[in-house]
């Protein structure tokens, strides 16, 4: 057990959450971070879906890494990712139909999420399955974390609610408060991601 969570493995899991965050530091997966964060719920689901898919794609690629012909390795990675994404999207349609309607095309776009290909190519191709699983989990969660922060801010100021529950009371609207329509536009997501990167660099990120 102690071996499973050795210092190296813990770092593999924890680094992407802060010091090597895929969105903030590697600047990967920005496009989907802009698209699905207008509300909190799709942001959470997207974060979880990417986490699960990155973790399992990492494990599968890591298991077959020695059999993959180098010349077609990207093709093999794509097939594995595409198959996993299709399965997740079918499962969502069967068990969480509302969410799948809300995510619509973005689930399919996970296939092209750079975090996945980045982790497969940079980590899973040369590491054993267990560290690869932790690496996928960590990077997925690091991505989900940013999505949740941006999605929360956008829903709160764009609609006055969180997860669909109205948080800003009617009296404040009656007194002249308006929802910020700009927050629901993708452009604002980009600005918010920029602000998150700024805050992260200023207060949390320490150069090694």
């Amino acid at each position, binding site marked *: 057990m102690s071996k499973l969570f050795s210092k190296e493995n813990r770092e593999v899991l924890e680094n992407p959450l802060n010091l090597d965050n895929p969105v903030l530091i590697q600047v990967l997966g920005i496009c989907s971070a802009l698209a699905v964060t*207008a509300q909190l719920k799709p942001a959470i689901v997207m974060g979880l879906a990417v986490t699960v898919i990155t973790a399992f794609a990492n494990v599968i690629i890591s298991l077959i890494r020695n059999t993959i012909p180098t010349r077609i390795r990207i093709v093999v990675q794509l097939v594995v990712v595409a198959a996993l994404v299709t399965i997740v999207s079918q499962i969502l*349609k*069967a068990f969480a*139909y509302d969410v799948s*309607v809300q995510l619509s095309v973005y689930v399919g776009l996970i296939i092209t999420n750079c975090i996945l290909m980045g982790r497969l190519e940079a980590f899973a191709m040369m590491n054993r399955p267990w560290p690869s699983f932790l690496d996928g989990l960590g990077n997925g969660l690091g991505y989900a974390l940013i999505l949740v922060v941006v999605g929360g801010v956008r829903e709160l100021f764009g609609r006055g609610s969180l997860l669909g529950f109205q948080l800003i009371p009617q009296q404040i609207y009656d007194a002249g408060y308006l929802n910020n329509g700009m927050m629901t536009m993708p452009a604002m997501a980009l600005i918010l991601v920029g602000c998150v990167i700024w805050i992260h660099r200023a207060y949390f990120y320490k150069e090694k």
Partner: protein
Amino acid sequence: MTETRKKSLDTNSNSYIIIYSAVMVVIVAFLLAFIFQALKPMQDANVALDKKKQILAALNIRDLDNVAAAARYSEVVVADRIIAADGSIISEGSNGGENAGFRLNSADYKAGKLALYICKVDGQTKYVIPVYGMGLWGPIWGYIAVNDDKNTIYGAYFNHDSETAGLGAEIKDNKSWQDKFKGKTIFGDKDNSDYIAIAVKKPSDIKNPASEVDGVTGATLTSDGVSMMLQECMSKYKVFFYEK
């Protein structure tokens, strides 16, 4: 030594690559086909339930959970009739509304098979018709409930595939916009069925407030799409609406 050399030779030879990719594709294809087949019944049930909820929304019955929505739907819909554009009845449909008109989609609609849901809400007869059209980025559709005078709109529901969130998507998300259709008349003059008055316009262009609805701000093209969709669909159903 020979073992490793053999292996490294293998993984880079053309035949290995071809066999490897062929096997991989076959495995993945079987896996996906199996999962698709296994989950299909549940997905179909979800799609059907979602359609029922949309029809209920047109009848101003909203925010029900899944079980309540299915029960309410079978209680409200008397028949899901199929009619042709000349007003003749192709299929009477059945009570509970699941087998005839309910199964039609936009392709059937274009082919001239029109669904007509005959509903009873609080003892009054309402007609619900589906409408299909194009928004700015993709298909839009909706359901319109009409009173038994076959002219006054009782309620409306719109949905879309890929309109812009916060702008065009408001046709689905903004309930108060859908409510603006309540009480509007389809024909400006009930005796002249060639003139379909129901339309979505800019506030400055509205001349006939009994039939014209203010569009969604910032989504002119989607609003125009809704307007064209209504005009086109009402003209298909006009023989039915016109008969006394």
